[in-house]
């Protein structure tokens, strides 16, 4: 029993390290996704064209930009698997799918977290957001908990859509309704952290509770459901 757990943990770590090494070697996140997310933030500023409104909706824009970028990162995460049949090879080798899920989800979370930090910094610089120390701590907690949920559900549906024809359109159709609770919860929590629209820091914690429920549920369910969803 413990042997099996150690086995799975070793595989999960190997998969996560492998995905992050791929990102390190190819720099897709840094060279393409991050600039895309940043330009989305700039375009929001053009479209809304009002400092007061921007300040009030900044949290929502941060999370919308995160979701759009996430679609790209998830696609990328499974393109590297299918480009030369690597996921097939893992399956043939009988590698535990739950462990692969955990590994890929963790790698996705790390990448999303970096991206979100950059987006929050962009909001601070471009939209003139000001945070207290308590607000800053709350923002960090929100990022961590929301990212765990997003990484889990993104990997789950990314794997399902990966083998399919028309995956570019199927992934948003499945993923965006599922992450609605994260968009709502993370936006409200971030509003509290930013103090947008007169929100106070203490108003954010119930929303972080919602994000936590989402994160726990989907990371647990994903470990079980990933294999059956991805297996041919």
């Amino acid at each position: 029993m413990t042997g099996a757990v150690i086995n799975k943990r070793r595989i999960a770590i190997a998969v996560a390290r492998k995905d992050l090494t791929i990102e390190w070697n190819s720099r897709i996140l840094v060279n393409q996704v991050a600039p895309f997310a940043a330009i989305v933030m700039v375009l929001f500023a053009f479209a809304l064209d009002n400092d007061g409104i921007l300040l009030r909706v900044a949290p929502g824009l941060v999370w919308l930009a995160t979701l759009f970028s996430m679609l790209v990162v998830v696609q990328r995460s499974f393109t590297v698997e299918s480009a030369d049949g690597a996921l097939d090879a893992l399956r043939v080798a009988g590698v535990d799918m739950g462990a692969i899920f955990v590994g890929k989800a963790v790698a996705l979370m790390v990448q999303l977290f970096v991206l979100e930090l950059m987006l929050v910094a962009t909001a601070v610089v471009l939209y003139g957001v000001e945070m207290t120390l308590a607000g800053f701590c709350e923002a960090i907690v929100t990022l961590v908990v929301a990212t765990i949920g997003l990484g889990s559900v993104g990997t789950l549906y990314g794997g399902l859509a990966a083998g399919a024809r028309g995956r570019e359109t199927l992934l948003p159709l499945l993923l965006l309704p599922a992450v609605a609770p994260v968009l709502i919860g993370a936006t409200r929590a971030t509003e509290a952290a930013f103090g947008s629209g007169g929100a106070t820091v203490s108003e954010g914690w119930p929303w972080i509770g919602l994000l936590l429920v989402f994160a726990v549920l989907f990371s647990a369910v994903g470990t079980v459901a990933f294999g059956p969803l991805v297996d041919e």
Partner: protein
Amino acid sequence: MAGQSGTGTSATRRLGILVIFLLATLALCGLWFSAEDVVQGSTVRIMYVHVPSIWTAYIAFGLTALCSGVYLSGKNRSLAWDRVAGASGEIGVLFVAVSLVTGSMWGRLTWGTYWVWDARLTSTAFLFITYVGYLAVRQLGGTHRQRARRSSVLALLAILEIPLVHFSVTLWRSLHQEATVANPNAKVELDGLMLFSLFLGLVAFTMLFAWLVLHRQRGMMLEDAFSDRGLDVAITARRNEAGA
């Protein structure tokens, strides 16, 4: 495999006649015999379609989840469970669409707008999109068993997602004080005949749902049987190829 060419049996024909009778009675009660509402006037009659539709949709998605669970937990994994789940999902999407359309028409007449960001409306819209995604996954191709496993897992995931979406949307809207316009039913004083019509609507739509699911799942069974027969023909052709 069904011996006859259609998807009906004498039982479904009887059920069909009952459904027609119930719907006709509902139309009479809803449009003719029942009284107008003091505030809403004849507008209230939309309720006799709107409420039963969403009720039926919930039953449909419940049945989809139930059959998917049975499919995944069963030892022999009969594809019949998957077909009922799929048929029920399709018809559920249809009924959610009907309830969204009738709801927004009702909203236009009573609130003066087709859409409000009310918790129930918003989460119903998410419900709709979630099951459209479910139907898209059913169309992905592959063998019947691949389809069944994928879509069963997804149906159970949807059951997990929906309460979360509903809860978060409700929590979101509860922060805004305008939420009291949300519930049109609350303003309606139902007299005996109106209540009867509503109840009749629930029964009629549930029967209609049962009738549709029975036919649709038989239709799916014939589709599966047809592609299996196509497979048999192809296997024979391939064997002959080998012999040639």
